[in-house]
């Protein structure tokens, strides 16, 4: 029996693997929910100046510790600053800490992993050993040790968190590069006289891109979390900078008088991590599904 045309898959053959990965990811309802929450949070922090006309740093002692109301939906803090404005602008920073930290960790990690995997030998042994050492610290402990060197502060927190994520990216890149280093087309490029750098950049790294994309999605959430944790401990963003972790640190002292100061900033972090976890899970499920299947 010959299959009729209608039974053939509707998707065109020319669909790129990345588009297919995304399509498969968003077949899961949790990915859609995750993307929606993330979109709302991103939109709210990007549009912060349009969503409030209040200055997040404006002190107004007469309005201290007011509960949420129509005009101030998240209440005010102990020196009368508007909590909604601080929430919006704080979200910007919390998200930014995660993104920059991962940018640092991914850039350093991918470079180290690619060099180790491509050159092998003692270069590989030395780099892999240093990655083993870094990975043997729990994220937060390593970040604390780095803050001890760099000193507290928002920028330093980004660097400290970024360093904690180097080993993950390095290991993944190294194993991807190792698995394709000996392929014929790489040999061919080498025989044609391509330099090490150009082989790495044009042949080896693009092949490692998809697993790296999944790792990035999964890591941004924990980077945001570790960054906020540093700020919560008073070692990241410093007052009066609005940042969710730092806002929780400040709000903690008023937990008995003003629940809104601890509920809202934490809710922001929670929803961010939740949305990234939902997306990341669906993405890695879709990537693990491989080429065959549904």
């Amino acid at each position: 029996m010959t299959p009729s045309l209608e039974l053939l898959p509707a998707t065109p053959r020319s669909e790129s693997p990345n588009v297919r990965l995304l399509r498969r990811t968003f077949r899961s309802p949790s990915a859609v929910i995750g993307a929606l929450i993330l979109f709302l949070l991103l939109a709210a922090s990007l549009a912060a100046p349009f969503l409030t006309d209040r200055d997040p740093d404006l002190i107004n002692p007469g309005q201290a510790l007011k509960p949420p109301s129509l005009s101030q939906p998240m209440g005010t803090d102990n020196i009368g600053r508007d909590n909604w404005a601080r929430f919006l602008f704080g979200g910007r920073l919390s998200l930014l800490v995660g993104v920059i930290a991962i940018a640092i960790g991914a850039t350093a990690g991918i470079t180290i992993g690619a060099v180790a995997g491509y050159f092998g030998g003692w270069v590989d042994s030395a780099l892999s050993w240093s990655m083993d050492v870094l990975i043997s610290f729990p994220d937060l402990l390593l970040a604390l040790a780095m803050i001890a060197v760099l000193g507290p502060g928002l920028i330093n927190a980004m660097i400290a968190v970024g360093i904690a994520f180097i080993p993950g990216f390095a290991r993944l890149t190294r194993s991807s590069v190792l698995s394709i280093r000996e392929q014929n087309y790489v040999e061919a490029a080498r025989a044609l006289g391509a330099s090490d750098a150009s082989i790495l950049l044009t042949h080896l790294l693009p092949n490692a891109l998809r697993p790296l994309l999944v790792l990035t999605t999964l890591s941004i959430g924990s980077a945001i979390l570790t960054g906020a944790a540093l700020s919560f401990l008073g070692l990241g963003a410093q007052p009066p900078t609005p940042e969710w972790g730092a806002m929780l640190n400040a709000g903690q002292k008023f937990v008995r008088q003003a629940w809104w100061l601890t509920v809202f900033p934490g809710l922001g972090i929670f929803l961010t991590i939740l949305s990234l976890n939902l997306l990341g899970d669906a993405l890695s499920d879709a990537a693990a599904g491989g080429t065959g299947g549904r």
Partner: protein
Amino acid sequence: MRRYLARRLITSVGVLLGISVLVFSISRLVPGDIVDVMLGTRNVTAEAKAALRAQLGLDAPIPVQYLVFLGNAVRGEFGVSLTNKMPVARAIGEQLPNTVVLAAAALAVALGIGFPLGIFAALRPGSWADTLAMAVSVTGLSIPTFWLGLMLILFFSVQLGWLPSIHKGSDPLSLIMPALTLGLPEAAVIARMVRASLLDVLSQEYIVAARAKGAGRARVIFKHALRNALIPVVTFLGLQMAYLLGGSAIVETIFARPGIGRLAVSAISSRDYPLLQGVVLVTASIYVVVNTLTDLTYMLLNPKIRLT
């Protein structure tokens, strides 16, 4: 097997050496003169500075300084804390038991909730019960520890007035919220692990055979599948126990509990480098040792590795 064992132990010793290099570098990489940084704005004489410089052995070449540091660390000597003038080893020795109690209690919470939840979800994969259990799990995974702690305080201390919000000596009630804070996110991780591992085992042939012989689903799970499904989970538990030790900084800070996590945070704020180096070195070493032991346990439990 002996070769695997030897290789594993050599790797661990190499990592421990690397950790000692990194921890040593903490105080040497600080920009500026470490003595000025450590003494900060405290009013000190030139003699006091010279004394600290001599105590830290800063006049020797760097490699010699490292070897001295390593030799001392191996003997459990980490110098004297700058803030409370107490030997660092004694400060850690006094605080470590508190953190171990917290980590053990959190692990009990994680197992007590994570295991039943994971098994419950694996019993009927794809059902609403499974979906619900996994929704609870992903929620638990996404809650920041520091927020969870504050929300528990808000509910159980402020609203209900049932539990003390800060540590009170030997009062066992004051351990409940810290243990929940540290343990609940771990419970979420364990539930996922148990579910995935159990589903994996349940799809294997000997389970299908047992089912075909007429064994009920519950009997199959508890008699046949669970034992094998436990192997990866046990491996993971070792890692988590060590992680709980490291992650105690936040929980101890929220609930004002004594412990080495809080010691590390206060050491950073007061620029007490000997104390910080001691805490980081001890915690990371515990992590490596537990990790190695877990790998070896896994090797003993899993004949496939034992044979090669």
